[in-house]
């Protein structure tokens, strides 16, 4: 901490000394800024990883492609270590169609099962090869 002002009654030499010390203190400020820059670099790289849907994470989703009740097309989005997804489309518990989708981590696939549009609960059930299972359904 230094004074950079001209203190009343100080000699010229004292003023020069004070100014030199002030520039020395500026180094302290730059060090604080440098610490912040390093911290920001770490935070950006680590939080970007945290927000990366694939990095260190294991999850997948199942959803209808549209909200249109006349469509049964569905999307499997994979961010897990599983790669094979077996689906069954059924209506009120009766299986109408089955199939398999192969997906790498970070990929998604849209499946259009082409089943008749009838009244009742149309379900899409998907089981991954790691044993996890998800289901979506529409009531018509």
């Amino acid at each position, binding site marked *: 901490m230094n004074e950079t002002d001209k203190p009343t009654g100080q000699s010229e030499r004292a003023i020069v000394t004070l100014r030199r010390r002030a520039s020395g203190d500026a180094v302290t400020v730059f060090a604080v800024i440098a610490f912040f820059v390093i911290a920001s670099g770490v935070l950006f790289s680590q939080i970007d990883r945290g927000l990366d849907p694939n990095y260190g994470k294991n999850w997948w989703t199942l959803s209808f492609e549209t909200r249109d009740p006349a469509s049964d097309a569905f999307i499997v989005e994979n961010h897990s270590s599983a790669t094979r997804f077996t689906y069954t489309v059924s209506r009120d518990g009766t299986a109408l169609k089955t199939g398999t989708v192969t997906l790498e981590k970070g990929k998604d696939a849209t499946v259009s099962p082409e089943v008749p549009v009838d009244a009742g609960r149309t379900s899409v059930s998907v089981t991954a090869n790691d044993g996890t299972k998800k289901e979506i359904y*529409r009531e018509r």
Partner: protein
Amino acid sequence: MILLLFLIVTLSIPLSGYFLFYGIFGRSFPVSSLERFAFSFALGLGSLDFSIIAFGKAKVALTPPIILASLLVVPFAAVALRLIYDRYAPATWKKTASTSETVVRPEHVRFSPTQRSLFLLLIGLTIFLKTLFLVDAGVPTATDLGHHMYWSKVIVDTGRLPDYSKREIVDVGNGHSALSAPEPISDFIIGEHLPFAAIAELSGVSFFSAFPVSFLLLINIVSIVSLFALSVRLASFLFPEGSISPVSVGLAVLFFAGPLFAFASPEAKFVSGGVVGNLIGNLMIPLVLLALLRSFMEEDARFLGLSVLLALTLAYTHHLSTFVLAFVIVGIFLSLLVVSIRRLPALAVRIGTVFFSPYPLLAIGFAVAFFFLVAKPTYIETNAVTTAVGTAVKATRTGLSFLQTSESAGVARMALGLAALLVAASIRPIRRSQAFPFILGWGGILLVMALRPTWLFLNIPSDRIGTYLSFPFSILAGLFLAGFPFLFRDPKRKPANDVFLPGNIFLFAALVLFSFSTWNGSQENQSALPNPGKAQDAVEVFSASRYLADRTKPGDLFLKDHNYLAADSWMKLFFMRGYAYPLSRGYFKRYTDETNPREQCTLQMISVPNLPEGQACFKDVGVNLLAVNPTYDAAQFESSHAFSRIYSGTTIQIYERNR
């Protein structure tokens, strides 16, 4: 590249403040480098805020060039005026710029090489610990941060100042509910959002990144630097003969405010939680007090002008901090009256001389003109101030116990701080020093506000007040720690700082003191450690939000759960259809709070969607989409034929109400 742009824009704020500081006060303004840095950062924030508000109120679109102009125009205009003034103003004008010609400023506030190394070690350790905490906790999930970033994104998306309003479900009588027209809200203040909007607009960095947390970390770091600077100045006035090195006091304060309680509120926990207003408040309050202290002790009116500008910035940023600052200033003033009871006429002359000077009067003139001609803070426009004063309506507002207060401030800081107050009050030169009221009034009034708010007719949550205690009690604890050896000094012995206690006993006592402080601070840090693993839950919620944002229209009404979904307050950033979109089922306790009755529909539509009251709410309000955590809330929808499950993840499912 994005990181580089973020850093350039972010560091431009203190740089613009530096130029403004130079423009207003000139090169020879007597501040240390750390003080100049902290004041520059705070002034840069203020200049940016007021410029953008002025442009926004003038209906100028807030595009990147205008934001850049907001950052640069005022500081460079100030520099130009300064250069003209320095060159052409008569010498007699320049003489009146400083009223402190006859006051000897303390000269012993400088670092020794060892002290500089210790400072860098402590501040480096503080930043290192906070960064470690934020790496785990910093993924954007915090509720408050999500709310604040929504408003900042509104500014970026619309190019206008936000209209702080929201639609709510209201009871319209006969057991029916409806969605209200947008109603003004006073919880948010423009200064909390403009810096984030400016950084995002100029650098292009996404709100879904480390940028909000990094910027808040910078604010937190500068606030600790400010506290250090304030404690050094305070110590230099308390010990004018140099018996205790002010920088040593500052280092002890840095020890208590930095690494020891690095994670606790209001430190890294507030950074990750996005408690923007409090963090900016904790930056501005020590700086305002530092400027006030120096203006009073050195009779330099320029510092008073500076304190007015910083307090004005705070007023447009955070109502609670502004409120606390006002009480702290009153507390300091009352303490000053008590300390100067036999010198009141001299005190009045001293205050009057400083106050009635060009700098403070110009700053007050600017504040009044801005308030009446440009914009008022939202809490003034919505008359929210009256809700903070009066009889406490909730048990959470009637004061904390002493134990709770100690935990808020940090037990070690409270214990040593109170000891410091007792010791200081028993030492005559300190007790009679006119600098002493600045810490006595600050800590004392906050203690009363936290312990006995009814004495001051306060009606605000006492735990929020408790978070403001950490700064004054860090200073007091630092004073005690640095002054500890001098309590046992025997002036007859040589060297003068030799203690009268046997060496082993003194060493033991010092070690106990140090170990207690370190143990307590570290324990607080451990209890505040975040729960890692939230990142995946948050990413799943963001993915579901993106899915729904792409497949809905403004006519769709969406309700989500706040209790069990991660990062749910961030969902609104994917839609940008209003602050209350999606609607939210809040914490369960809020629906049974008799002191603040609220609508029940957001609870019933998720908890009991198949019962008549739930169905009536769907009919009245028009909600057709719901997002819930399947672990807790799937069964009631699965059993109903009224809903389709259109999206299924591990921690979030989306249901659509069938037409």
